């Protein structure tokens, strides 16, 4: 199995899941001299127009993306980053995957609990259900002293 074009949507949670996903994507892509596409989507509330200028969010997103770019470049992997502004993140990731014609979507996720239960999250669920290509989910290891 070969994955020359890999989409890595970032969650921006800063928990290390994003970084590990990029590292794994680089490793998979480099083998076939492929390229990774790193995207981060800003969700825009309905109370604002879709093209609203979101200063702090954009700044944060740009930082997340430049950090991601560094991680990929340090591994000598071809990388392209993209910042999206959207109402719903799941569909935006799927659109991006289709547009780029990627072979794989690779997502990192933490071990999250919501209402005391493990929760995959809406975005991951949406991507798993709707992705046209293969999806690889890299979950963080369980932390025993996890509080929420």
């Amino acid at each position: 199995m070969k994955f020359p074009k890999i989409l890595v949507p970032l969650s921006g949670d800063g928990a290390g899941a994003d970084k590990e996903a990029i590292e794994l994507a680089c490793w998979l892509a480099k083998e076939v001299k492929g390229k990774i596409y790193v995207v981060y989507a800003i969700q825009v509330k309905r109370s604002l127009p879709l093209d609203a200028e979101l200063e702090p969010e954009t700044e944060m997103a740009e930082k997340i993306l430049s950090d991601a770019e560094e991680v990929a470049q340090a591994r000598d992997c071809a990388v392209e980053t993209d910042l999206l502004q959207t109402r719903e993140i799941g569909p935006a990731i799927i659109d991006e995957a289709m547009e780029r014609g990627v072979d794989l979507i690779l997502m990192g996720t933490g071990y999250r609990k919501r209402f005391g239960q493990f929760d995959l999250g809406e975005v991951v669920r949406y991507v798993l259900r709707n992705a046209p290509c293969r999806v690889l989910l890299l979950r963080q290891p369980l932390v025993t002293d996890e509080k929420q």
Partner: protein
Amino acid sequence: MYIIVVGGGRLGYYLSKALLSQGHEVLVIEKDTVKVERIEEELGSICMQGDGCETAVLEEAGTERADLLVAVTDEDEDNLVACQVAKHKFNVPRIIARISNPKNEALFKKLGIDVTISSTNLILEYIGQEVPAYPVVHLLELRKTKLELIEVKISAGSPAVGKKVKDIPLPPGSLLILVIKDEDIKLPAQDTVLHADDRVLAVTKIDTEQDLRAVLAGS
């Protein structure tokens, strides 16, 4: 314009589709998850699952920046409340309610819902009773584009009865969007024949509305 459509049934769906194609920002609020998914599949991320009568839902929908709210659920009372909440809580400048029971038109007017559209309303009843008479119901006026969305009832005496869409001399800039026969809705094709009692949704330029009215509804 930012337009909120409460109710993702058939009318809500077709209305949203028409509004989107005219370049408006549209949000549909619908309770039923299945309907929400169907609309999102067809029209993209323009839906919110929730009760459009609830203040909290309307707040999340950004109702305070909406230019127009159209309530088209199947229940008149839900449309009334959605419109009243939008008007009084969020100061939405224009609101339109669908009414299924024509008797509610007077009530809605009295309660400040300026425009009602009625799917079962026998518009012909109004002819001659009121001036101006309305074989044509204005659904929306799209000010910047000088276009409007209207519903026209094809009367028995209309010159369009029995004609194919392609043979009807529509004024330039007018477009038939939907043909509604009883509960049946279809997109008009070139060969679709119009019958008496059909209702037609059309977009037209405001200044040629009279001409469109003449060819569809008769004088």
